């Protein structure tokens, strides 16, 4: 009985187990335990949540390994961590630490303005952000085992996540009605690998799990993304920048399961305390927009 590790089945399989769940940004062991207690299906280990990265500025890098290990020791659920776009050595370090998933993330300052990491070389699975189908399929072509919308992290404003979800899902709908002979030109147009375009058309969905991320702050936001057709949600700053993190975290976990039941959504949305303060995307300067990072 030979054991095969690091296969696509095993990497994509972990993402499949996260579906219908909430992945929460945490910055220490205590927050990680609150997330686990609230029913999070995984946590993202960070030094600073995106809202603080935005506020403080400067170069944002991979977190200190000590911080990541502290969080890994604190919980039994999968622990993810972020590396910079194109920074394959940060990714090697995260793999060596034993994190369960790596997010090659536009929230951190990119290390390479042309190339993403060759994710096929790693045993650990990767998740990457995407704004449209071409970007999603390029990342999958590089070996990503999971895709998420980029949204606009650290704003508490869901508008960009909705835009990116509608773009990806709308383009897939268009693809499913396309004649096969049109697919090569379409692959060229969106800059995506042809084989993945054909596979996506056949499946009627991305070949990997597709989560929403970037600006989700309330149970209603989470349910909105699920009703649009996403497989689950990441909540970054939205939980631990709010007034009552445990209560809000529990409510968002339930909202992702009961996304189609307005009565339960009404019940769990009540009396959650202060949400995080949001930012209107239109007042951000172009260089402050994280979603434009990635190529």
């Amino acid at each position: 009985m030979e054991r095969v590790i690091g296969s696509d089945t095993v990497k994509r399989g972990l993402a499949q187990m996260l579906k219908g769940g909430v992945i929460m940004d945490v910055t220490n062991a205590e927050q990680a335990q609150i997330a686990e207690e609230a029913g999070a299906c995984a946590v993202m280990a960070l030094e600073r949540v995106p809202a603080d990265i935005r506020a403080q500025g400067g170069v944002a890098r991979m977190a200190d390994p000590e911080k990541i290990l502290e969080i890994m020791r604190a919980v039994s659920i999968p622990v993810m961590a972020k590396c910079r776009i194109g920074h394959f050595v940060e990714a090697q370090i995260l793999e060596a630490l034993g994190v369960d998933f790596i997010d090659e993330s536009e929230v951190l300052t990119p290390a390479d303005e042309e190339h993403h990491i060759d994710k096929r070389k790693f045993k650990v699975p990767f998740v990457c952000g995407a704004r449209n189908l071409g970007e999603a399929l390029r990342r999958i072509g590089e070996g990503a085992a999971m895709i998420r919308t980029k949204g606009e992290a650290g704003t508490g404003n869901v508008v960009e996540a909705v835009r990116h979800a509608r773009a990806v899902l709308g383009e897939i709908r268009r693809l499913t009605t396309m004649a096969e002979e049109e697919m090569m030109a379409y692959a060229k147009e969106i800059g995506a690998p042809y084989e993945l375009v054909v596979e996506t058309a056949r499946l009627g969905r991305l070949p990997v799990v597709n989560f929403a991320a970037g600006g989700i702050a309330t149970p209603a936001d989470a349910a909105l993304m699920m009703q649009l057709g996403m497989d689950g949600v990441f909540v970054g700053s939205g939980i631990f920048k709010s007034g009552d993190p445990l209560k809000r975290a529990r409510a968002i976990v339930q909202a992702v399961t009961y996304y189609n039941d307005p009565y339960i959504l009404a019940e769990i949305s009540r009396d959650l305390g202060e949400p995080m303060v949001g930012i209107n995307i239109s007042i951000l300067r172009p260089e402050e927009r994280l979603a434009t990072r990635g190529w």
Partner: protein
Amino acid sequence: MKIGVLALQGAFLEHEAMLRRLGVQTRQVRLPRDLEGLDGLIIPGGESTSIGYLAERRGLLEPLREFALSGRPVWGTCAGMILLAREIVDGIPGQPVLGLMDITVRRNAFGRQVNSFETDLEVPTLGDPPFPAVFIRAPVIERVGPEVEVLARLEEGSPVAVRQGNLLATAFHPELTTDARFHRYFLGLGR
């Protein structure tokens, strides 16, 4: 025949797709009332702490126990196996579970995701060829009670598929493969 798939969190759509391929009707179970009229239930893989919390929050634990005690087949894969187990090692304190099978299960027994693996598993009940077993941050069974039949073991001897009457548990994920033999075996438990 109509089989429910617990749809609180995790890979429930994959189980439904496999059951439909076998011509079986399915229903997603999120609330106690969804259990009415079902002939069997699958508890899918996902995070056992997440599924347990959601089941407790909506009053599903007791109805799920009653469903299993009624003699209808119930199958837990991975996280589902943890929920069925009477005893859990390396769980979190107070983790809500069903506690129905006389087994002790260790969570994340193979380590972290980089140790997740695929292997061809001998399952005598299913015959040849070996079953393509996908283990993802998988649990193993450390102890089985006298009423529990072991259906498959890893080479070092750890049980990874067990049956106790109408209850079935696997540490791996038949729903992530195209091999429907475990699903057929499960459907046969009800007859």
